[in-house]
């Protein structure tokens, strides 16, 4: 059951991510982003991280809407971006460079088969019994990561001050 759900959701997630990159209409791209983020939220749910999943939905629903507004204001959507590609030469270089990167990754993966195992992933730390549940997240945020939590608030304050500075009209 879980595996089946995972497979379906993962396929949809990857497909929507691809569509996001490949569609030229920015609004359609943003809509595919919604689908993609929703799928990721479901993946979180499958891992038992309910809080993370729902927080993701709440935050990204708002974030995507802002993206929409920006897309409309900045990109003049509806008209597909056409005309000569200003970066044609870079596009030609992309293929060999991409192949090179692929080769590199293959080499690294090949070389690492001798030791450490592919991925070399360590076991994740045990955070309580139900990691990702709202209680454990709360404990982490206000316990071990209290300082980072507070720094985040200062970061947001700085962003707020910055936005106001840039947005306000030249006074007097």
């Amino acid at each position: 059951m879980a595996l089946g759900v995972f497979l379906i959701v993962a396929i949809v997630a990857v497909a929507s991510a691809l569509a996001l990159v490949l569609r030229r209409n920015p609004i359609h791209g943003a809509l595919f982003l919604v689908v993609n983020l929703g799928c990721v939220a479901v993946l979180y749910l499958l891992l038992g991280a309910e809080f993370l999943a729902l927080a993701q939905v709440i935050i990204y629903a708002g974030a995507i809407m802002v993206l929409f507004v920006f897309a409309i204001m900045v990109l003049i959507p509806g008209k597909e971006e056409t005309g000569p590609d200003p970066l044609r030469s870079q596009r030609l270089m992309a293929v060999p460079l991409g192949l090179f990167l692929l080769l590199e990754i293959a080499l690294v993966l090949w070389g690492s088969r001798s030791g450490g195992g592919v991925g070399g992933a360590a076991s994740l730390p045990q955070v309580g019994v139900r990691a990702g549940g709202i209680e454990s997240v709360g404990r982490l945020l206000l316990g071990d990561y209290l300082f980072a939590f507070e720094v985040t608030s200062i970061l947001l304050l700085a962003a707020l001050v910055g936005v106001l500075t840039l947005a306000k009209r030249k006074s007097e």
Partner: protein
Amino acid sequence: MIRHVITAFVLLNAIVLIVTYLTYVERKFAARMQSRIGPYRVGRPHGWLQPIADALKLLIKEDIVPALADRPVYNLAPIVFLIPSFLIFATVPFAPGLGLADLNIGLLFFLAVSSLEIVGLFMGGWGSNNKYALLSAMRAVNQIISYEVPFVLTALIPVLLAGSLKLSLIVEAQRGLWFVAYPVIGQLAFVMFLLATIASENRVPFDILEAESELVAGFRVEYSGMKFALIQLAEYTHMFGVSCLGALLFLGGWLGPGLPGPVWFLLKALFIFLLVTWVRWSFVRIRVDQILGLSWKVLLPATLALLMATGFWVALRSGHVA
């Protein structure tokens, strides 16, 4: 599994029925406020078949798609708009044990899902390829994002008081005293919740996104027939859902003497719905800047302060603060 499917089916149909009749209630209520009679002719007594007739009429109307519309987006929008409005009922407990899934983080689920609605709304506004629809959608983004924050913050006050995000536990914590009856905190929170509710439902006086005098009908201006019906259904369902949430958070849900729990619950939800309707027919629309100003300059600081006060009070009560 099968049980869940059946429950969900029954629940969905019940909600559709209730919501259909909410429109009737609203029309009658509005009519009374304006010394009219309201729908009277279809069905006796008092035109009780009117909502059914409306639904049938919309069903058989022609479905028009504007020639230059962004077709897939335009066609999907009503569905994307509708699904979250129904999903929010997944965690609503109508009585102890009577509900689809009483999640541990029920309230969070409610907030997350209802925040998705804006996506459908925006798709409709964008897909119609109509300037009024687009303007309306842009306004909606402004407004809904602005009011999301105070809405969540007011909803958190009962959570603090109850010490849980599980909706049934929040209701149980009100056995004895409903949260709305808590001195000062309760009433203030309830009023703010109502304000945020009205704004998140885009109703008068916060209905700038469908201000008929400037934007014709807002984001749904191009929709007709069945799709229009779906949008309308979604709006009223959402309204009913938020009313239910208000009843759960502040009015003690199913708790009450004499009558069975679900009846109490529906009565309370109806009460909140009528309260909102009352506001709707009493006030005039306010300007965009006033709406945003109210959210960011008044509601947000006020709800934050109230949340802090509540937290302090809860700490005091539990003895964490000497």
